[in-house]
């Protein structure tokens, strides 16, 4: 990395983070970060700590110890900048069932204080093929359509850091393809992408970096090309592993 690059490209990182839920440590001394222009796949078995880590980066969870930093500053001191820069999709859709898709986006857009809100909403709806359903109540949408509305919600404020927890859940084949194409283009636009999926090949087709978590610890963080798949327990679709 060239000197001073970390200043030019803002980063979102966790440093020595541990997170306890009661006696259970969901994350143990985790240190890693993502930078604008980077695309990282967060991979690991159930209970590895992926969701906890992403929630922490999205300012939804506090670490039991350690720090979450945005642009080098602890977000506990001022989380506003980080929140403005992060778009997050979770297992929950964050949608009000009694509001239409457009009304949901209008509401969150107003909380973000966005200018030209209606134009932004049009663009976000277009991005996820939701224009035809903008007047439908969120409760009447199928799971897949709710997921698309939730993605539109996350992209509404044009975030520099896109954090997606299982974004392909419930999507049909065409929507998966469209979302994959969109995510692949994010680093070119100078945005950072961190996402998780249980379909490794699907994730590997989008990301250039792999972060492997297991039992709350980082097992690997580096380029996908040089990842030790065998020792990470990852079997590629073609059956080959880097270790071999």
């Amino acid at each position, binding site marked *: 990395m060239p000197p001073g690059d970390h200043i030019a490209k803002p980063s979102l990182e966790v440093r020595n983070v541990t997170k306890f839920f009661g006696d259970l440590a969901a994350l143990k001394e985790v240190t890693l970060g993502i930078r604008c222009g980077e695309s990282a796949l967060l991979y690991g078995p159930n209970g590895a700590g992926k969701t906890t880590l992403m929630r922490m980066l999205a300012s939804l969870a506090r670490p039991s110890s350690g720090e979450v930093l945005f642009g080098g500053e602890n977000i506990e001191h001022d989380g506003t900048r980080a*929140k403005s820069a992060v778009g997050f999709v979770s297992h929950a859709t964050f*949608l009000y*069932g009694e509001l239409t898709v457009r009304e949901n986006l209008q509401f969150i857009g107003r909380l973000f204080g966005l200018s030209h809100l209606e134009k932004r909403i049009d663009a976000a709806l277009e991005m996820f093929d939701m224009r035809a359903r903008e007047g439908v109540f969120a409760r009447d949408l199928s799971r897949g359509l709710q997921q698309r509305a939730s993605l539109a919600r996350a992209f509404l404020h044009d975030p520099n850091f896109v954090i997606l927890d299982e974004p392909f859940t419930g999507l049909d084949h065409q929507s998966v393809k469209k979302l994959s194409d969109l995510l692949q283009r994010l680093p070119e636009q100078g945005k950072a992408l961190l996402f998780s999926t249980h379909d490794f090949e699907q994730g590997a087709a989008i990301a250039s970096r792999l972060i492997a978590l297991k039992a709350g610890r980082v097992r690997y963080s580096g380029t996908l090309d040089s990842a030790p798949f065998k020792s990470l327990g990852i079997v590629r679709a073609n059956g080959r592993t880097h270790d071999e």
Partner: protein
Amino acid sequence: MNSLKIIWSILLKDLRVEWRNRETLASMCVFGLLIVFLFNFAFESAREETLRLLPAVLWVAIAFAGVLGFNRSFSSERENDCLEGMTLAPVDPSMIFVGKMLANLLFLGIAEVVMAFFAALWFNFSFLPALGQLLLIAFFGTLGYAALGTIFGAIAANTRMREVMLTVLQFPIAFWILIFSIDATSNAMRGNPEGNWLAGVGRVGGISVVFTVASFLLFEYVLEE
């Protein structure tokens, strides 16, 4: 200015959700009216009896109807983790509190007007001679009660026995607001000398402002895990 816009957005959202499902206001009014009616049925509506009982009957009805409303207010936020979704925005948590509290205050206020109207009919009692004093007492009492209902509603929303939990958490603290409100309402209805009811309003107002400010300051911690 930006804070006002955020508060207005949250209030407008709650009003819109309520307009669409009409669950909160309907359940609050029906439940409150049922309590007032049962007490009216159980006791004679002689003037002295009414003066003695009606303030307590009204505030008990307000208290229970309020709990129903506060629970409903956070059930729509619980669905799809919407409250958490709100905290993803760069918004001061206290603005979320104010927006939710104003919605609760408005709904409870409307339910109070309905309850007071029917109480006046059923108990054959006119609130008009002391209307100004009663409105002041109702405003402060409801403000403090809605503030507590909002913060405890948010706490209870994350617990398993949320409906029970809200009552268990809120009533021991709201007790003081209710006691002072009943006392002040009773004095106002009896037309006691000015000093008496003013002191009563002062007590209700004082404790309500303390609870509202404390809830405002503490709401941030409630939203954290």
